[in-house]
C-alpha cells in the first residue's frame, strides 16, 4: 500500500541540497588555501572524500541500509572535506584515512548514521589524530616554501623522507612556543616583528584563507542554510576573551584580530559550530554553544596543551548539547512569561 500521509504538499528542499550548499560555500576557502600553500590540499580532499564514501558505503551495507538513498546525501563529503581542511596539508595519506575512518565509522555510524551522532565526526577525527600523532599534526609547511606539486605528492604518499624544512608550525603554535620559551621576556609585538611567519593580521597569508571561509559562511547565512547565532557567538567569545587579555597585557597576549584570523576560527565559526546534528538547536542554546565554544577554544589555544582549541572546544560543547537544549527550550505558543 502506498502509505501517503498529510501534508500532501512539500517544499522543494532536501538534505542533499543542504549539504551541497555547504560544500559550495567551502570552495572560496579551498581556493585561497591552494593559492597559499599549493595544490597539496586538493590531494588530501580527494583522499578524504574517497575514503569517506567508501567507509560510508561499507557501513551502510553492513547495517543493511539503502545505499543509494544515503550515499548521495552528501553528509559524508562535508565531513571528509572538513577533515581534509583541518589536517596539515602535507600529512601522510594514512593519517587522513585514520581520521576519516574514525569519523565515519565510530563517530557517525555506531550512533546510527546521519543525524544521530552526538559528536561532530570531523572534530573527532581531528582530536583522535592530534592526540595520537601530535608530531605529524603540528607540522605545517611554511607559507613560503612552496614546494612543487610532485614533491608534495611524494611527501603525502611517503615516497620522500620528511625533512625539517617542510615542518614549520602554524602562526598560533609558533607564537605560543615563542612566548613559552621567552618566559615573559619577549613581547608579542617583538616576536611578530621578528620572523617572517606573521603577516598583516595573522600568519602570513593565512588571513586570506580565513577571510575566504568567512565569505563562504556569510553566503550560507544569506541562503538560510545556517543561522547566525552560533557563528557570531563563537566569534564573539573569542574576540571578547582575546580582547580583554590583550588590553590587560598586550605584550603577552596577541590582539583579537590575530585570533580571529588564525587557526581554525573562521572555518570553525561557519562550518563546524554550525553543524546542525551535533550542535544545539534552540536559539538560546546556539548562542550558549557558540560563545562557550569560542571561549574554550581561546583558552585551550592560549593556555592549554594544543596549538588550537576549536576541535576540543566543539567536542566539549557537544557533550553539553542535550542539557543545554533541554534547559533552553523557548516558551511555546501561549506560555510566554509563564513557568
Amino acid at each position, binding site marked *: 500500500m502506498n*502509505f501517503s*500521509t498529510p501534508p500532501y504538499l512539500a517544499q522543494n528542499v532536501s538534505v542533499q541540497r543542504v549539504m551541497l550548499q555547504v560544500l559550495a560555500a567551502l570552495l572560496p576557502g579551498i581556493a585561497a588555501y591552494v593559492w597559499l600553500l599549493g595544490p597539496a590540499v586538493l590531494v588530501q580532499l580527494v583522499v578524504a572524500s574517497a575514503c569517506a564514501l567508501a567507509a560510508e558505503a561499507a557501513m551502510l551495507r553492513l*547495517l*543493511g*541500509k*539503502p545505499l543509494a538513498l544515503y550515499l548521495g546525501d552528501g553528509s559524508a563529503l562535508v565531513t571528509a572535506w572538513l577533515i581534509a581542511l583541518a589536517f596539515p596539508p602535507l600529512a601522510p595519506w594514512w593519517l587522513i584515512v585514520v581520521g576519516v575512518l574514525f569519523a565515519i565509522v565510530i563517530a557517525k555510524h555506531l550512533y546510527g548514521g546521519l543525524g544521530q551522532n552526538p559528536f561532530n565526526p570531523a572534530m573527532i577525527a581531528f582530536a583522535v589524530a592530534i592526540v595520537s600523532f601530535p608530531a605529524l599534526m603540528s607540522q605545517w609547511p611554511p607559507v613560503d616554501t612552496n614546494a612543487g606539486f610532485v614533491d608534495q605528492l611524494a611527501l603525502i604518499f611517503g615516497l620522500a623522507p620528511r625533512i625539517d624544512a617542510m615542518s614549520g608550525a602554524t602562526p598560533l603554535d609558533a607564537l605560543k612556543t615563542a612566548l613559552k620559551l621567552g618566559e615573559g621576556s619577549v613581547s608579542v609585538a617583538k616576536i611578530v616583528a621578528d620572523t617572517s611567519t606573521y603577516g598583516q593580521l595573522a600568519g602570513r597569508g593565512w588571513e586570506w584563507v580565513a577571510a575566504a571561509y568567512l565569505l563562504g559562511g556569510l553566503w550560507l547565512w544569506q541562503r538560510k542554510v545556517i543561522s547566525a547565532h552560533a557563528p557570531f557567538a563563537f566569534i564573539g567569545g573569542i574576540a571578547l576573551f582575546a580582547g580583554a587579555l590583550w588590553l590587560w597585557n598586550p605584550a603577552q597576549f596577541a590582539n583579537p584580530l590575530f585570533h580571529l584570523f588564525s587557526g581554525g576560527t573562521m572555518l570553525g565559526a561557519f562550518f563546524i559550530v554550525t553543524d546542525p546534528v551535533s550542535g544545539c538547536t534552540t536559539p538560546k542554546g546556539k548562542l550558549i554553544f557558540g560563545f562557550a565554544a569560542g571561549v574554550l577554544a581561546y583558552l585551550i589555544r592560549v593556555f592549554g596543551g594544543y596549538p588550537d582549541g576549536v576541535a576540543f572546544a566543539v567536542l566539549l560543547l557537544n557533550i553539553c548539547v542535550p542539557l543545554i537544549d533541554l534547559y533552553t527550550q523557548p516558551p511555546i505558543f501561549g506560555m510566554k512569561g509563564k513557568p
Partner: protein
Amino acid sequence: MLTAILIMALGAIVLGSALGYASIKFKVEGNPLVEKIEAILPQTQCGQCGYPGCKPYAEAIAEGEAEINLCPPGGQEGVRKLADLLGREVKPLDAEEKPKQVAIIDEQTCIGCTLCIQACPVDAIVGAAKQMHTIVGALCTGCELCLPPCPVECISMARITENIDSWKWKYPVIEIKQLKRVA
C-alpha cells in the same frame, strides 16, 4: 601491632555502636519501590508471573528475587518500563505476547453455578446462584482464570477488535531493510 589493633578497635566500637543504635532508631517500614513497581504492572491478577497476583510479584521484584520479564499481560512495554524504573537491562519477555481478550459466557450453557464469579479476581462477572451469569466486558481483564472452574465450559475468550474509537494511528514508516537487519 598492639597500637594498630587498639586504634582500630576503638574505631570499631564507635562505629559499631553508632550503626547498631541507628539501625533501631531509624528503622523504616514499607518500601516505596513496591508501589512504583505495582503501578507499572497491568493488574490483571492472572498469576502467570508465578506469583499470586501483581502485588506479590512487585514485592518479589523489589526484593531482587524475580526477573522483570515474567508478566505476559504487561508485554514487552511493561518490561521496558520496569527496566527503566529499576535501572536494569531490558530483557525479552519470558512468554509470547498475546492479543488483548475478554471472556464471554455462552448464556445458553451457563448453569449459574457461581464458580466463575468466585474465580474472577476483579469482579467482572455478575449473576446470582442458579441464574445466568454474564461478564461485563469493560471490566474483564482477560486473565482466563474463570475458564478452568466452569464445570460446563461455557466460557470462551474473544479477541478485542479495533473500532473507530479505539483505532490508533500506526507507526509511520516501516524501514524494511532495517527490520530485516534486526531479525
